[in-house]
């Protein structure tokens, strides 16, 4: 049994390994094709990151991981929530406005703002859920549209009610007592790992427990695997769609919270866009598994953060890492399928070998 386990773990690592290798090859070819030096590129990328970047990588990993879990909740249910981007944009703005208004102080304000973020994310995703269950509108289409609406809405509110400062607009700064900062593992100038990066850990553990240990998680996985079997087993598919969509949106609302309370302190130019889409990519890369997505988030954070070094050391544009990331996701989807088929064939052969000697006995 244990030998089988080692082998099956080895097999499940095979696909991502092939995918990463493939993305390195493609990136190298692209860099060489535009006339730059792949050698420079990889030596810069694989250099051990400076302390400041190490802190950045941890912080980015946390946010990307939360986004990946949000996407995975949808995927495990068979829903494609492309609207993470809009959900966390609107949620971040709402939470920042709430926290900036300082109705509460200290940690109470932090917790309340986080609740606001989750609620807004959940409601925004819930719109797509309601459209799907009552009108049969595909959540893919509606969430894409809701992304545009959310971003436009935030822009409108910010322009009309935001605090103007020079050329930029932002929400009211939170009071110093509400900022929860973080801890600096290296020297102070290298920055802090945000305290609220802990949200990523909680979300990851919560996701695992929910899926594997609870009845709701079983219902969710059953619905994702076979809608017809789920219906026959007594699961109400509409209710499941709505709940999992809102859960996905609620988690999406948390994506930017570590950065907000850790350093940004207002919603404005410091808001980081694109985390929702990164989360979808990482969920695909990590096959919606809690641990797999952790490695995926770490890889993506590393590539994004480390690419900043390219500006100084090489003539390669930092955007090239987006090619690496994109190819990794594409390749992982393909290689997983290839490995899965190969494994099925091996299993079948193993089974027929195992059964062969007993044939005489049962015949």
């Amino acid at each position, binding site marked *: 049994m244990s030998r089988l386990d080692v082998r099956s773990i080895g097999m499940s690592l095979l696909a991502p390994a092939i995918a990463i290798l493939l993305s390195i090859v493609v990136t190298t070819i692209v860099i060489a094709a535009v006339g730059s030096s792949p050698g420079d590129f990889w030596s810069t990328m694989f250099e051990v990151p400076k302390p400041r970047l190490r802190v950045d990588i941890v912080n980015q990993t946390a946010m990307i991981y939360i986004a990946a879990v949000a996407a995975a909740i949808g995927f495990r249910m068979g829903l494609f929530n492309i609207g993470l981007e809009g959900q966390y944009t609107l949620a971040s703005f709402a939470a920042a406005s709430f926290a900036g208004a300082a109705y509460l102080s200290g940690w109470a304000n932090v917790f309340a703002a986080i609740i606001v973020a989750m609620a807004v994310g959940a409601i925004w995703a819930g719109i797509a859920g309601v459209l799907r269950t009552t009108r049969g509108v595909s959540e893919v289409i509606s969430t894409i549209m809701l992304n545009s609406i959310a971003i436009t809405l935030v822009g409108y509110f910010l322009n009309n009610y935001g605090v103007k400062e020079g050329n930029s607009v932002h929400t009211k700064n939170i009071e110093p007592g509400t900022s929860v900062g973080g801890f600096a593992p290296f020297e102070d100038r290298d920055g802090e790992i945000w305290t609220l990066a802990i949200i990523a850990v909680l979300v990851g553990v919560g996701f695992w427990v929910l899926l*594997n*240990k*609870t*009845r*709701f*998680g*079983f*219902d969710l*996985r*059953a619905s994702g*695997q*076979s809608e*017809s*079997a789920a*219906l*026959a*087993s*007594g*699961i*109400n598919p509409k209710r499941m769609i709505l709940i999992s969509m809102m859960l996905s949106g609620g988690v999406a609302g948390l994506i930017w919270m570590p950065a907000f309370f850790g350093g940004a302190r207002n919603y404005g130019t410091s808001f980081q866009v694109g985390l929702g889409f990164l989360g979808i990519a990482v969920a695909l890369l990590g096959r919606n598994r809690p641990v797999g997505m952790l490695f995926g988030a770490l890889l993506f954070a590393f590539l994004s953060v480390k690419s900043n070094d390219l500006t100084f050391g090489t003539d390669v544009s930092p955007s090239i890492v987006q090619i690496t990331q994109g190819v990794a996701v594409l390749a992982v989807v393909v290689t997983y399928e290839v490995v899965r088929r190969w494994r099925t064939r091996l*299993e*079948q052969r193993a*089974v*027929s070998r*195992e*059964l*062969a000697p007993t*044939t005489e006995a*049962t*015949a």
Partner: protein
Amino acid sequence: MPSAVDAVQLRGIGKRFPGVIANQDVDVTIRSGTVHALIGENGAGKSTLMKILYGVQRPDDGTITIEGKGVVLKSPTEAIEAGVGMVFQHFMLADNLTVLENMVLGAEKLHGIGDGARTEIRRISDRFGFDLDPDVLVEKLGVAARQRLEIAKVLYRGARIIILDEPTAVLVPQEVEALFVNLRELTAAGNSVLFISHKLDEVLDIADDITVMRRGTTVGTADPRTATKHELAELMVGSELPSPETAESTVTETVELSLQDITLTDEFGRDLLSGLSLNIRRGEVLGIAGVEGNGQSELVETIMGMRIPTSGRIMLGDQDVTHWHTRQLREAGIGYVPEDRHRHGLLLEAPLWENRILGHQTKAPSVKGPWINRKGARQDTERIVRDYDVRAPGIDTPVRALSGGNQQKLIVGREMSGDPVLLIASHPTRGVDVGAQAAIWGHIKHARRAGLAVLLVSADLDELIGLSDTIQVILRGRFVGTFDPAQVTPQDLGAAMTGGEAA
């Protein structure tokens, strides 16, 4: 041009799946230019054998010889190259494309996609009397024409050996006659046909040779000129045919399920079920007989809460459950063996023990409050595997790896768990091997003695007559006759099912 070389020789073919031997020591010889019938009950191993011949699955043992040459078929593409083509029971055609487009799809290199292909299609169509117009949309074609198109597709790709999987199942009698005319034209031109069926009349009518399969192996051959239906049936079922007959009646006076004037209307206003009323008492098996598609599925789904009746009332015991949701009904003690176990009964990728939870997510031992009780579910799965003789390497095996019979035994075991008061069983032994069939019948009889009320929907008239205490015949959503299984014959039922006689 029938030649001396046999079209296909299969020797010693064996194929094993987890827990079941699908094929073992299978020998079949198809002579060139003949229709060779392969007959056997569901689960006898016919479909595995033809998948092996068509390259979908590779045999564990044995050799395949096609037109004198030994071959190893790794894929359908290789089978077609070797001259073997297959027409599946479920057609694989694109409705919104024309006959020509369907024909050339995936075979563009053979005759192009234009006039070359059109000429070739006309040639095939005229040669064998297929009557196909290359430029008609497939959605305009009837079932029989679609089947001829599928056969033509196979010929177009150069096949000389054609496998037909239960081709007559979808046809009305006149169309069957026409198909047989086509098949005789095909063999007269030197092609060979492997005809898979379990309809003995047709087999005796069309076949030149007959091979009979039972329990995964070939048990004999017969000459259609001399063989009788009775002999073939005996070969097919063997001497150990289990009898579904129940002993003394266990029907009590307590009504467990009562349907009162149930009508179900679809979105276009048509009645799927009209005014159905029935009572099932504790210890009673009520059989529903009918040609498929006459409302059986809708009736079951209505009782299970997956559809809400337009009018009428459903009582479980003395509770009105007309508007209850599936989960409430299951909690109230209804066991459900769905007609399509893959679509409605199982999570194929999930292990056995997780499938034990499916449909019982709110009941011990699978759960404790909102939490999954992994230990309890696993222990109870071990019990089902033991008591219901589910042959599986272990309870962590994905259900997909089990044979149909073992999957069904797992479902029956699961649905019998937790002392149900009512069992809704749709085609409980469809597609399962004889051993599993006998076991499932045994479990139903046993539970009936213990006071279980059972609604049994089946297409197998012997099963219905053998297990039921009362049989209702359903036709176009109405009950058209009530029969006592002790006196009724399959012929009487057959007449009522087709509207020949309303008793």
